[in-house]
Structure formats: structure tokens, C-alpha cells
């Protein structure tokens, strides 16, 4: 009965819960995983990116972004905006076409799929007959021209996707006008390019793969001109005035053709192999942009000399005597040039080039001398070097914020100061309520500081720890500018650099004190750096100390990596965070936990062998404690990777095979791969699968024991000023929790400020708690007399209202993977507990204290625990009574890397990686929500059917004009009305998750299960709706 009452629903509390908690996946930060297509609307100033998992993402001005997901999860091959409309058409690799619209609903625009269509030929015709190769949305906005592999060009009506069969341009009709000898040589040609006449909508240009180009008159339905190219055609471009066309070819050449009205056979004006004379790679796309001064910008992709530079991913820009081949870090998916969008304008006047590479977006300013890159406000490549850890700091004081930005701006001086050229749409989201920093640690030893306050995750500052150490790599390697006489004139652009020179440099733990500006980072080889923010450049020696964590343990040999060699000479540090102390653990195992107390000037660190405390004021090691069980050979010998069982490594090799198969499939789309390799792969895969099925997966049921491996692994460290020994006086203390369920508490004596440098900091072990369930301790927290978690160091000094209650009795909360336990202090007796695993079979992966404010009243807020379990669920548990409040499914349980990457904020938001390059942002709070809210207007159509760009300055007056326009354009009004019915489609990129899954799935997941799993996703899936 009592039990029943305890779990009964308290209506008041239930109502409060609704005011406090709400789960939403709000926005995806970073660069889309595996982009496959790029589109741009010159009239809307919007860019669209499609991915291999069927997602499309639209970006405009910072804060303006939309997401959509094709139900099929197929690769997006092409994206085309309908001229002058808030609509776009996507072509997927299953040959289906999809029409998407941006519709306005309650003041904000939403992306919505409207129609889908698959082109079908007559029964019995080969699939190639209708396999779409190119799509041309006509400027009339009424039809789409679809070029196919058969050489026919089909016409479909928009938006209904009705096939207009009478308007089909068959290859037979085209070939009738071509000279006899030419015709006989070319029996089959696929349509490679379709271009509309820039001035005359009645003419389109059709380019066939073997080199034939025809000008088709839409009204008379006949070929008006033909151009007999001799080389295999890659692409076509029509000059702005319509008098010349440019063709680019497989052999790395391009040719200019005059378009005149006389009927003689045109010959190319000029044919050129820009990187000849030796054989060159294909030029796959070309732009010819006219300028006022007469010198055109010729911009083309590829064309590099095959033998020596065939592996480069390049785009060349030629303007008079200037020529640069921009050399990208990954394959170029597509690019476009931003120019004067006014079709009536005399010149193109290109201003910027936007290049979508496989791993990053690069924008080149073509107006400024030297063509510098533009710093993108979004689509940051989070994975420039693989992310190894992250740390979030909420509510940064303005002073620190400005100093970080100023340090960062000095690093970004090589960027162009051009305003971001893709500026479509209007951001309606309110200004972020506070300044938040997300710090990511990377494999290459860098820490990146991101502005995580709003929808755009923007890089503020990049810190490198590499200079402290002696490494083989020369840090200036990549900066080496090319010599004057270098040909081709390559210039490296982009920051994606996944190859780490030395994996020991990897950052594993970060802690930033927002009040003092102290930062500590710890890495893979047991290194701990303490840094201070300095606005000036400095050259100094970094003090270093060693912490021998093994102490008395003898007769063991560390077989892992060596520790890093520190530089003994002074090192130059740029303005920003500058290290002043380096502590190196011995053995140099990866640092598994880290804590900094900026007020006491102490830093605590732990590895799989033990933990230590370092006084960074006096630069003295206070103590070390070995936590290792003497029989724990594995922990002694080397890094965690050595523990991998044979089974696991087997599974990993299968994974590798699978991955290579996936990538080979990808290659087939581009260039082709031999069938044998594929066949061999699939056979091996099949065999492997059978082998795995013979042995059923079983799990050992055994209690944990003290002798298990890695029980000494230090999982968490915590500083607290509390009643550790006697209830009358509180003292500084350090708490450590291990993998084997042990909690150590040390009583610290920190000298008063005036004698801080004279007397040593002392520590003495006061308590050791062994949890009998021996599950890893993942969190330790002290609650004050009111049951409120103790404040952070210096928090009280900066905000008096937060001082903790030191009168009542304090309590200790120990969170293990399996249970939550509250003990009294200073006499340790157990008070409360919540058993999670025994009841639900899930384990705690991440835990944090979060403050939840009510959305109804401003004056109510409470602290709760936010936890993420190994099943990917998020639970909120009340403090101090440990009652489960609410549970949301968040990450799929197979997404081990997603779960491992999750980081909570102090105000109930969180981030986790949905791919190596993308953070999903979620919110548990009703009060703190950061999500895009923006509007895109349909461009106005002028009488002469030409389009005007209405973005930029005009946006400011949008609202006033909106009211005046309503009478003038009834069609647009209708559209607006229907738009109100549309749902906001903020989509989760499920297939991306699935793919990461297949490569990063957890060690315990069965092989067969992984293969048989099917994930069904509806495209209307949105916003992660709360239960």
C-alpha cells in the first residue's frame, strides 16, 4: 500500500513536469555526412546539399536552414531549383524525381515534399531508355527536360509530373539533321548536358556523350544548329549573351563554339587543353563568366595532367594572366559560381565560387586579390581531425567570450572579409539567451572552440597542443606555399586533414573554468596541460613534471606507447590559451578523468593505473594514488586496444570488408570497379556470415570481482568543499571513482591565499567506499544542506546568490553504471538508492546535473540529473530524492559512437554525433530550445519574365512590402494559404545513422542481427516528439 502511494501520480508534480521537461531534436550542426549533390538558386540565394542517405539540407543566410529526408533513403544524385520559385527537384539514384517546396506556415517557412515521379518507358523497353542523366528545369517553371541514357529528352509538366509525350525530343529526330557520316558512327549516345538559352527560352542546347551538340528549337521542334565535337563530351556552358557555347571534354580540353544565325557548319573558335600537352583528366564542368573589364573568368573542374596530378581534386580559375588550381582535400562533389543573378545584366561579374567537397565546403572570394577563402558561418567540418572528446560550457561571461573571439580572429586573418555570399531567407529565431561554448578535442592534439549559442555552430578559436611536444611532423608542412614557376599552379584549400601525425597527441579530456580562464586538457599518452588565457603572444618554457602512478608496483612492464617528449627550449605561443605546466603520467596510459579547481589551483587526473593531484600554482605534485589491482595484467601492459578479444578483432575485420564493399559500390557510381572484386567480396562476406552463425551468441553471467580487469581505471574525479571528517568543519576534498566500484575521498589542506606559495598543499586519504555491486563509478556529487549540488569553483565568488548551504548536513551521491546511491556525510551511511540496471537492464553512460526552468513561471527552476543509458534513452532523475521523472528514447542503442559522444549542457540541452562530422542538438527543457526558425520569400516576377534578386538589402523592408503586394499577385497568395497546412519537416538523418552503425556497431552486437536489421523511416518523421 505504501509502495502504491509512493509511485502514485501526484497531479501537481505531473503538471510541473510538463512545464519543465520536453524532448526535441532541434538542429544538426556540422557538415553533412557523405554529401552527394549540390544545388543553388540564384534568385533565392539558397544552397541545397543532398546526401547519400537521402537527406537534403538547405542553407541561406546564417540561421536559415531547412532539412528534408527522402523516404527511400537513396542517394541524392542531383538537385535543381525551379527558377524563381521556392521549389526544387531532386533526382535519386533509383531514378525517381521528387518535388520539394518551401511553404510558409505561421510566419516561418518549412520544407515539404510535394510530389514524386519515376519516368517509365513503354513496356519492354530497357531501363536505360528512361534512366535520367540530366535534368533541366525550364525558366517558364512549367516543364522539366529530362535527358536520358537512351539519348531521348523527355518533357514533364510541373508540378504534376505529367509526361508530355508529344514534346519528347527523340535521338532519331535529332540525328536526322546530322550529316550522314557522323550519324553512322554514333548509334547510341546518352544525353550529357542540357542548357537553356540564357536570353531565349525557346531554345535549348542538348549535348550528347560522344561529342554531338545540338541547338533545339522548342517551338518548331527541330534542330536549328548542330556542333560536331570530336571528343567525348562532359559538360556544356552557355555564355551570358547566348552567342557562344563552351564544351568541356573527357580528354581535358574545352572548346568555344560560336552560335550564329547562318546555316554553315560551325567550327570551334578555340579548343584548348589547359594542362596539356601530356594526357589530362576530364574537365567535368566549366563556367565562362564575363566581366566588365573584358577578361572572362574561366572556371573548370578537373583537367589535371593524368600522370603526375591525376589524383588531385582540383578546380582551376583563370582570369587573364592569373591562374590558380585550387587543390581540395577530398573529392569535389560539385560547385557553383555566384554571379549577378539579373538575367538582364550585361555581365556575369562573378563574386564567389562555392565548392562542395566530400568532407567540407569551401568558398572562394573571386573579388578580392589573391582569391582568398571565405570563412563559412555554418557547415563546419567538425571532423577536420577526428573528434575524440567534447566539453560544453554554458553561460560564458562576456569578458572571456570576447577574449576567445579576439584570439580566434587573429587565427582567421587569412580569410576574406567578404560578407557571406549565400544570404537567402530571413532568420526569425530570437537571439540566443546566453553564450555557450562547445569545446571539441581532436585526434591531432587540437581543441576547437565552437560558438554553440545558436543554430549555427561557428568555429571561434582553435588551440593546438602539438607545439609543446617534439614530434616528427613539421608543423609548417602544410603551409608551404607553391613556388612561382610551379605548374600546374596548385593551391591547397580547406582544412580537412584526417591523418594524425602522432595518435598520442589525441585529446581525451577537457575542462574549462569560465570564470578564471584556466583550461586543462589531457591526452592519449598520459599528458595533462594546464593553460591560461593570454591576449599577448608569448615565448616561454613549459614546466613539466612526472607523476609515477605505479609507485610500489614492481615487476611489470608497460607495453603500450611511449610518453611524448616535451620540448625543453622556449616555445612561441600565439595569443590565446597558452600552456604553462605539463604533467605526464607514468605509465603514459590514456587519461580517463580530469578535474580542475581554479580557486584552489589544483588539477586532478586519473588513468587506468591510478590518479594524482597536481598543484599548478606551486607546480608541485601533491600526491598520487595507485588504484591498480596487482593481478590486473591487462591494465598494466598497455592501452585499452590490447584487450580486444579475438572475436572482436575478427568482427572488425569483417567490418572492414563491409566498409570496403560499401565504398566500392560508391565508386561504381562514379567510375566503375571490376566485377570480380565485388564478387569476391560478397562471397567472403557470405562465408563469414555463415561462420558466425554456427556459434550462437551467448553471454556469460558472472558477478564482478575485485580481480576483474580494469577495476582500477579511474572514471571520475570531483572536488568538493564539504564535511568529510567531522560535521563541524568543512574542508576541501578530492573524490575519485573507479571502474571497480571504489570511491576514494581525500581530505585536502590548501594554504590560505597569502601563504599559498609558501606552504605545500597537503592531502590525506579520509575515506574509501567499496560498492558491493562493483559497477563502474561514473559520477560523484555532493549535495548541500538543501539537497542542491555544490556550486562550481569560483561560481560563488561571481554570483553570490548561489552560495551553498553549509549549515545542514551534506550528502554524497555516487552514480555507478547500475545504481544511484545517496550517503550521509561525514558519517557514511546509506540513505537512498535507485537501482537502474537491476530493474531495467540498462546502464548509465553519461550523467550530469542540469537546471530546468519552468516555461510557465520565470521564478521556478530545479536541479535534476540527466542521464544517458547504454540503450540510448535519456532519463531525468530528481534530486535529492532520486525519483525517475521522465524518459525519452534519443539515440538508437546500436549507435555506440553516438552514445559515447553525447554531452549534456547545464541547462538541459545536449549534443551527440550522428556521423563523424555532425552533431545532433537536442533539448530536454521547455525553456532552453535552440532551433532554426526562418522564412524564405518567393522572388518577385517582373513583366519581362526575368528574375530579380530580392534578397540582401531588400529583406529589411520585406514586411512592409508584403502587405502591399497581396493584391498584385493572387497566385502567390494561394500558395501561402495552402502553405499553412504544411508540417514542419525537421528530419532525422536515419540512414546516416544506419551507416555509421554498420561500421561502428558495438562489440556486443551480433553479426546476424546487424545484417537482418531493417530500419523503416517515414519522411514525415519530425522533431523527435516527446512521449
Amino acid at each position, binding site marked *: 500500500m505504501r509502495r502504491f502511494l509512493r509511485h502514485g501520480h501526484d497531479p501537481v508534480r505531473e503538471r510541473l513536469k510538463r512545464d519543465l521537461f520536453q524532448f526535441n531534436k532541434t538542429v544538426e550542426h556540422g557538415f553533412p555526412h557523405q554529401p552527394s549533390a549540390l544545388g543553388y538558386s540564384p534568385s533565392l540565394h539558397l544552397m541545397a546539399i543532398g546526401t547519400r542517405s537521402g537527406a537534403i539540407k538547405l542553407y541561406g543566410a546564417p540561421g536559415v536552414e531547412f532539412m528534408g529526408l527522402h523516404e527511400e533513403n537513396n542517394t541524392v544524385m542531383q538537385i535543381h531549383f525551379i527558377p524563381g520559385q521556392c521549389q526544387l527537384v531532386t533526382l535519386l539514384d533509383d531514378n525517381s524525381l521528387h518535388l520539394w517546396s518551401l511553404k510558409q506556415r505561421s510566419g516561418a517557412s518549412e520544407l515539404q515534399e510535394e510530389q514524386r515521379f519515376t519516368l517509365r518507358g513503354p513496356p519492354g523497353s530497357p531501363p536505360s531508355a528512361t534512366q535520367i542523366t540530366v535534368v533541366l528545369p525550364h525558366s517558364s517553371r512549367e516543364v522539366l527536360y529530362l535527358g536520358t541514357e537512351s539519348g531521348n529528352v523527355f518533357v514533364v509538366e510541373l508540378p504534376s509530373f505529367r509526361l508530355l509525350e508529344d514534346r519528347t525530343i527523340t535521338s532519331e529526330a535529332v540525328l536526322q539533321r546530322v550529316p550522314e557520316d557522323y550519324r553512322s558512327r554514333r548509334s547510341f549516345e546518352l544525353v550529357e548536358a542540357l542548357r537553356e538559352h540564357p536570353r531565349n527560352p525557346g531554345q535549348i542546347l542538348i549535348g550528347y556523350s560522344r561529342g554531338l551538340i545540338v541547338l533545339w528549337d522548342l517551338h518548331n521542334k527541330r534542330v536549328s544548329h548542330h556542333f560536331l565535337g570530336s571528343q567525348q563530351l562532359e559538360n556544356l556552358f552557355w555564355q551570358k549573351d547566348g552567342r557562344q557555347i563552351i564544351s568541356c571534354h573527357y580528354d581535358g580540353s574545352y572548346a568555344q563554339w560560336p552560335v550564329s544565325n547562318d546555316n554553315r557548319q560551325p567550327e570551334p573558335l578555340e579548343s584548348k587543353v589547359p594542362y596539356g600537352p601530356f594526357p589530362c583528366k576530364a574537365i567535368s564542368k566549366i563556367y565562362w563568366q564575363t566581366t566588365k573589364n573584358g577578361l572572362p573568368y574561366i572556371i573548370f573542374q578537373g583537367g589535371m595532367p593524368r600522370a603526375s596530378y591525376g589524383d588531385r581534386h582540383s578546380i582551376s580559375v583563370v582570369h587573364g594572366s592569373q591562374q590558380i588550381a585550387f587543390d581540395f582535400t577530398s573529392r569535389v562533389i560539385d560547385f557553383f559560381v555566384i554571379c549577378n543573378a539579373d538575367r538582364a545584366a550585361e555581365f556575369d561579374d562573378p563574386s564567389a565560387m562555392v565548392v562542395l567537397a566530400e568532407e567540407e565546403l569551401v568558398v572562394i572570394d573571386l573579388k578580392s586579390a589573391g582569391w582568398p577563402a571565405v570563412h563559412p558561418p555554418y557547415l563546419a567540418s567538425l571532423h577536420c581531425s577526428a573528434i575524440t572528446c567534447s566539453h560544453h560550457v554554458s553561460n560564458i561571461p562576456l569578458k572571456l567570450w570576447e577574449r576567445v573571439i579576439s584570439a580566434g580572429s587573429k587565427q582567421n586573418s587569412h580569410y576574406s572579409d567578404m560578407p557571406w555570399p549565400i544570404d537567402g531567407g530571413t532568420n526569425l529565431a530570437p537571439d540566443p539567451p546566453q553564450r555557450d561554448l562547445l569545446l571539441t578535442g581532436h585526434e591531432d592534439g587540437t581543441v576547437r572552440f565552437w560558438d554553440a549559442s545558436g543554430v549555427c555552430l561557428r568555429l571561434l578559436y582553435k588551440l593546438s597542443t602539438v607545439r609543446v611536444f617534439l614530434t616528427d611532423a613539421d608543423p609548417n608542412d602544410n603551409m608551404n606555399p607553391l613556388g612561382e614557376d610551379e605548374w600546374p599552379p596548385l593551391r591547397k584549400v580547406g582544412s580537412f586533414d584526417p591523418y594524425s601525425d602522432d595518435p598520442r597527441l589525441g585529446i581525451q579530456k577537457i575542462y574549462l573554468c569560465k570564470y578564471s580562464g584556466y583550461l586543462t586538457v589531457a591526452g592519449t599518452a598520459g599528458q595533462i596541460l594546464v593553460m591560461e588565457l593570454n591576449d599577448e603572444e608569448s615565448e616561454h618554457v613549459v614546466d613539466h613534471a612526472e607523476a609515477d602512478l605505479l609507485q610500489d608496483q614492481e615487476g611489470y612492464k608497460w607495453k603500450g606507447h611511449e610518453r611524448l617528449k616535451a620540448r625543453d627550449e622556449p616555445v612561441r605561443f600565439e595569443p590565446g590559451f597558452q600552456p604553462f605546466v605539463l604533467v605526464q603520467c607514468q605509465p603514459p596510459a590514456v587519461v580517463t578523468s580530469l578535474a580542475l579547481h581554479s580557486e584552489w589551483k589544483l588539477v586532478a587526473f586519473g588513468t587506468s593505473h591510478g590518479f594524482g593531484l597536481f598543484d599548478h600554482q606551486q607546480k608541485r605534485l601533491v600526491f598520487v594514488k595507485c588504484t591498480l589491482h596487482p593481478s590486473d595484467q591487462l591494465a598494466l601492459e598497455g592501452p585499452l586496444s590490447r584487450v580486444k578479444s579475438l572475436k572482436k578483432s575478427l568482427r572488425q575485420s569483417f567490418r572492414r570488408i563491409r566498409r570496403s564493399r560499401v565504398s566500392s559500390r560508391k565508386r561504381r557510381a562514379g567510375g566503375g570497379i571490376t566485377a570480380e572484386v565485388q564478387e569476391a567480396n560478397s562471397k567472403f562476406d557470405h562465408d563469414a556470415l555463415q561462420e558466425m552463425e554456427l556459434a550462437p551468441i551467448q553471454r556469460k553471467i558472472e558477478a564482478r570481482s575485485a580481480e576483474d580487469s580494469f577495476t582500477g581505471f579511474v572514471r571520475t574525479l570531483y572536488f568538493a568543499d564539504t564535511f568529510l571528517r567531522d560535521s563541524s568543519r568543512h574542508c576541501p576534498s578530492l573524490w575519485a571513482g573507479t571502474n571497480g566500484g571504489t570511491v576514494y575521498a581525500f581530505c585536502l589542506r590548501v594554504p590560505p591565499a597569502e601563504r599559498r606559495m609558501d606552504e605545500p598543499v597537503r592531502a590525506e586519504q579520509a575515506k574509501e567506499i567499496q560498492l558491493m555491486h562493483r559497477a563502474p563509478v561514473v559520477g560523484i556529487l555532493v549535495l548541500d544542506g538543501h539537497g542542491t549540488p555544490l556550486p562550481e569553483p569560483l561560481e560563488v565568488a561571481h554570483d553570490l546568490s548561489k552560495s551553498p548551504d553549509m549549515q545542514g548536513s551534506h550528502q554524497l551521491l555516487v552514480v555507478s553504471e547500475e545504481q544511484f546511491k545517496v550517503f550521509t556525510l561525514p558519517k557514511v551511511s546509506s540513505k537512498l538508492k535507485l537501482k537502474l540496471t*537491476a530493474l531495467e537492464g540498462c546502464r548509465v553512460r553519461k550523467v550530469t546535473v542540469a537546471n530546468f526552468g519552468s516555461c510557465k513561471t520565470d521564478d521556478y527552476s530545479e536541479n535534476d540529473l540527466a542521464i544517458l543509458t547504454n540503450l540510448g534513452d535519456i532519463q531525468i532523475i530528481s534530486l535529492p530524492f532520486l525519483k525517475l521523472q521522465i524518459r525519452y528514447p534519443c539515440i538508437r542503442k546500436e549507435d555506440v559512437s553516438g552514445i559515447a559522444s553525447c554531452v549534456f549542457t547545464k541547462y538541459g540541452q545536449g549534443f551527440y554525433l550522428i556521423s563523424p562530422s555532425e552533431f545532433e542538438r537536442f533539448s530536454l527543457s521547455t525553456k532552453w530550445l535552440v532551433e532554426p526558425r526562418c522564412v524564405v520569400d518567393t522572388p518577385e516576377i517582373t513583366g519581362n519574365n526575368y528574375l530579380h534578386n530580392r534578397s540582401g538589402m531588400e529583406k529589411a523592408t520585406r514586411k512592409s512590402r508584403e502587405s502591399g503586394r497581396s493584391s498584385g499577385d493572387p497566385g502567390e497568395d494561394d500558395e501561402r494559404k495552402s502553405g499553412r497546412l504544411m508540417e514542419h519537416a525537421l528530419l532525422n538523418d536515419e540512414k546516416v545513422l544506419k551507416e555509421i552503425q554498420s561500421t561502428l556497431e558495438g562489440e556486443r552486437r551480433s553479426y546476424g542481427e546487424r545484417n537482418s536489421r531493417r530500419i523503416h523511416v517515414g519522411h514525415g518523421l519530425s522533431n523527435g516528439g516527446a512521449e
Partner: protein
Amino acid sequence: MNRTHRSAGGSRGLGTMEVKSKFGAEFRRFSLERTKPGKFEEFYGLLQHVHKIPNVEVLVGYIDIHGDLLPINNDDNYHKAVSTANPLLRIFIQRKEDADYSAFGTDTMTRKKNVLSNVLRPDNHKKKPHIVISMPRDFRPVSSIIDVDILPETHRRVRLYKYGTDKPLGFYIRDGSSVRVTPHGLEKVPGIFISRLVPGGLAQSTGLLAVNDEVLEVNGIEVSGKSLDQVTDMMIANSRNLIITVRPANQRNNVVRNSRTSGSSGQSTDTSLPGYTPHTVQNFHPEEDDSDEDDIIIEDNDEPRQIPKAVPTSESLESLTQIELLHESTQNGFIPFSEVNLCHSAGNVNMEYEIHDPDKKSLEDGTIITL
């Protein structure tokens, strides 16, 4: 050896404790000094002396606070018996040659009548020879079948006591499928099965679990709908006091109930009995089962001690049973959970939670010495 422990007649001072010893049909009463119980050998000699059976090999047992008949065969369990006696220590003595080992164990309370009659009249209990599973060396039982009265006959609920033994639990589980009877007919559903028993492990030595037994519940929580990994984690989390309900693959050794209620008769071998599950879940409150609550604290490099329970407040009272337990033990002047007290200073009745050496105290008053 022959040191007398008999204290002055009927005086029942604080330090003494009454002992009532039974051998065959004879009772002997005497008292012991609670603080100085002496060694088991001495006690054994004393018993032989008072019963006047100097050369008879006997087994000594006692009834603990739960009513379980537990053996006394070494200093540890002897001290335990003395320290927990409430208020009197009841001793049962059997001849070794006709000893009934199965009489020892938990839940002997529920079988009390039988147990007692077995012990009291060992000669008339010779109808069927029992199987000796293991020698009762251990202080605690290792396994038992429980809740026979509320479970369908096709199910078996087995409790494995991990603590008090060094044996590994020693079994593996796997995924599989089982056939259920549903309102829509037979249906194949995924299930969890025991896949392997480690020779010499706890699970095998009990004989209560077998390969291919289907696991239905873990400590009262149904496993259906949970993944193999979840069930693994649940079992490991409960490993110190694991209660698993299985449907044995071999249905021929099922426990037959003595008194069948009309409702549970004539059941088929199907496993999904909609009526029964809530019942069993009510009977299990894993979060209230505090038998694993023996976390240990070491303060100031002192001896390890168990962490006591804080004075209960209305929030932390977790069940009525716990209050009873608490009540029971405070009567005795002992902290709860002392039944599995690991510290050797358990004889110290008035043990305070914090024990400090005098010099340690002085440290707290100011001087703190670095380690």
C-alpha cells in the same frame, strides 16, 4: 578445553546469553559470555560435556534470527551464531553418522515443521534417501527453489546466493525462440535461454538450472521484450542475490504442490499465464531487497566496515519489511545487515560508526599529515 563457560545460575547480566541445546530428546540449558564466546573447539567440547557424549562425533547447528537451521563448524560461524542469538541461542546436535544435511538452509522457516521433525526424530525420516548436494561447510545456503505455491507448475523460481561462496555463478545465456499460447493461437516469440553451465559453478552445482531452460524473469522483472544484453546486465546487477524464474526444458522434475488450488489445476504447458505475472511481480520488490546492500567503507585507514543504513526518514523507508527488520535488529542492539558482517570485530556490541585512534582524533583537530 574444559574451561567452564557456565556463569552463575540464573543471573542474566548484559554480557551473558542463554543457550538451549538439544541432542536427541534431551535438552540442556546453560549460558555463555557474549563478549567472550571463545573458540569453536572449546564450545564443541562444552556441548559434548554437557550432553555427556564425550566421544560421539556430532554436527552442531543453530537456529538463526530468520529461523534457518545453520551449521556451526568453525570459529566464524560460531561467533556469528553467538553474536546474533536473540535472546537465546538454540542449538541442535545430531550424530554425524545419521546427520541430515538437507536440513540446513534458508527457508527452513517455511518448512519448519519438517525440519524440526527431521532433526528431532532423525530415525523416523528414512523413507527416501536424499541426495547430498554439497557439504554444508558454507555459512549460507547457495540456492533454493522459492514461491512454489504461487507459480505455475511448469515454472521454477530459483534463488542463487552468490555471496558467502567463492564459486562463480557459472552459466551463460543466449537468444532463442519459444512458442507461446496467445489469444490468437500459438505464436513464436523470442526468448532468452540458458546456453551453458560451467562445470563446478554455482548454477550447475545446484542442479536447479539446466541448459535450454527458458529464462522468464530476473528478480521479478519479466525479460520478454528485453535484449540479451539487457538481460545479461540485469542478471549481473543482481548477481549477489539472483532470482531467476525459468521454464525448465525438462518438465518431468517439476515440484508438485501439496495442495492445489482449484484455479491452478489442469494447466497446459504453456508459459504465458496472464493472471500470474502481476501476482509474482507483486511478490518481488527487487529494489527493496537489501541483501546486497553491504557496501564497505574504510575510514582513515581503519578496518573495513559495512556502511550502515541512515536513520530512516519517510522518504527512505522503502518497505514495511525493512522496518520490521530494522526493528528486530535494533531490539538486539545490533546494526542491521550484521548477519553478513564481514568485520572481525563484530563482537564489539556497542560499535560506533566511527572509530578513531586517539592520535587520529588529534589529526582532525588541526595537524594534517601528508601521506
